[in-house]
């Protein structure tokens, strides 16, 4: 028993020694012998294990790829969600550019930072201050019209009251100068909570008071600053008439106005220097619409040139296909005539017929698309901008 145990123990040691020896030999093998040995192992013993590993790697790659795809989809969805905002901002900046080119001098561009506090409903913080040349009682305007008046000026920022502030007053007139009045916020008193809620929805409306009875304004009429009073120069849009309201003042009419500027969309504004306000702004708002329209026309023209070149390219491709089909048809016709002179009528190859039908269909679709693009462009160019005076015809029209 003891001898058997000793024997098997000796065998264990021999095997161990052999394995160690083989391992040591493997470590000192020259490269040209090592590689064939490893290759034999890889092709025999390790091959099924390698296949397993390959499968696992593929699974991991697929999982990572699906994660990347998901991320890409989310990014695209996020970008798509931002498109309307960017379009609105682009439109607004284009209008501001139009206003700046109309004013030419004497203005300070600023960003309007609306407050979220309850006390900040009627004020707006502007990102320009006395360092940029802003002074107290400077007029704040937007491409749409009057915004308010600067009240407090710091070196790097300033605070302005909006047109909805209870202290806001501006002398105004109708576009043809037939009706004059004083525009002020539409402030109403209410007793119940429901009424208060309703009034909150009306707090940004304006009233035009003191309009003589002989001058009636229709709903939709644009009201401009009249220049009387010395602060607001003549010709800045203040609002649009919504309708007449009854007041205790029986000697004059009072109209409710929708402000030209929507405070919720207020972002980029212009602060007018006193010298610019004194010089007058009569023609600026008449030109803003024209400049905006011209910019839009240039953009549309660029788009239409790209579309036209694409259409030309498609037409050339279609012509090449038609020509190839014609050649094929002719050669087939010749072959048929030669081979079968007695046939009553040559049968049209279904492939050629299908190609012809497809070409006809493509041509009709392309024609319809061209017409629709022309219609859309014509509509877009001639569409009036709400809240602005009628614009002259754009520079280019297609």
């Amino acid at each position, binding site marked *: 028993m003891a001898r058997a145990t000793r024997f098997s123990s000796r065998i264990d040691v021999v095997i161990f020694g052999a394995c*160690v020896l083989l391992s040591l030999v493997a470590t000192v093998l020259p490269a040209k012998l*090592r590689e064939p040995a490893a290759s034999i192992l890889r092709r025999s013993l*390790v091959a099924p294990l390698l296949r397993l590993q390959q499968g696992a790697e593929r699974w991991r790659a697929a999982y990572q790829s699906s994660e990347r795809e998901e991320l890409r989809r989310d990014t695209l969805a996020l970008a798509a969600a931002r498109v309307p905002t960017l379009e609105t901002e682009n439109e607004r900046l284009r209008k501001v550019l139009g206003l700046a080119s109309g004013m030419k001098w004497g203005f300070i561009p600023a960003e309007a930072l609306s407050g979220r506090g309850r006390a900040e409903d009627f004020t707006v913080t502007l990102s320009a201050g006395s360092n940029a040349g802003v002074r107290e009682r400077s007029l704040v305007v937007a491409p749409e019209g009057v915004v308010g008046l600067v009240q407090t000026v710091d070196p790097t920022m300033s605070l302005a009251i909006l047109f909805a502030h209870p202290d806001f007053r501006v002398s105004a007139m109708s576009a043809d100068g037939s009706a004059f009045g004083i525009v002020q916020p539409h402030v109403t008193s209410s007793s119940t909570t429901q009424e208060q809620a309703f009034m909150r929805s009306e707090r940004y409306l304006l009233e035009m008071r003191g309009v003589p009875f002989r001058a009636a304004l229709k709903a939709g009429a644009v009201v401009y600053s009249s220049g009387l009073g010395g602060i607001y120069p003549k010709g800045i849009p203040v609002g649009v008439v919504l309708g007449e309201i009854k007041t205790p003042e029986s000697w004059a009419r009072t109209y409710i106005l929708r402000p030209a500027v929507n405070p919720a969309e207020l972002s980029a504004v212009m602060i007018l220097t006193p010298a610019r306000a004194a010089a007058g702004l009569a023609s600026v708002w008449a030109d803003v619409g024209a400049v905006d329209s011209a910019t839009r026309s240039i953009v549309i023209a660029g788009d239409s040139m790209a579309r036209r070149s694409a259409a030309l390219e498609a037409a050339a491709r279609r012509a090449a296909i038609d020509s190839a089909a014609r050649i094929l048809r002719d050669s087939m016709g010749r072959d048929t005539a030669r081979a079968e002179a007695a046939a009553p009528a040559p049968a049209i190859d279904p492939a050629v017929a299908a190609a012809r039908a497809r070409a006809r269909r493509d041509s009709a679709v392309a024609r319809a698309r061209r017409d629709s693009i022309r219609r859309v462009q014509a509509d877009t160019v001639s569409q009036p901008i709400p809240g602005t005076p009628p614009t002259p015809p754009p520079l280019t029209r297609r």
Partner: protein
Amino acid sequence: MNWGATVRTIILCSVLIFLHYTLRPLLNWKASADFLIIALLLASVRVRPGVAALFGFVLGIASDSLALGAFGAGALAMTIIGFSWSRLKAVFFADHVLLNGFFLFLGKWAYEILMNLVDRRLSGAELVMQILVYSSLSAAVTAVAGVLALMLLRPVLETRAA
């Protein structure tokens, strides 16, 4: 060792080798568990020292065939580990999870040290850093994975009688 125990050991080793070539690439951790070492250590306490050395040599040379720079190093390390653990099988008789984990940690760490010494690619501070930080981290992960495998495969396992 009877036939039943042999079959169980083969199944255990097959499962662990399978995990080494499937779970490890899937997880792709920086310090991943070495299921080959776990298989070797768990098999070593169930077979004779000579068989354990041979098993270690086969596992090592198979894994070395994929890493030409260290051809033979893994085989040498696994042969020594397998033979030594089979000789020291008494310590595994204590069926305590933490003790098993500790010895798995020691086994993997010893393997890493041997590999690094035989491989001779690192030296000086780099070698010390490798042995003390990355090798010990890898040994710890292997010990945790080994303990989990032991707990999951407990029905299959049967310790050889002394």
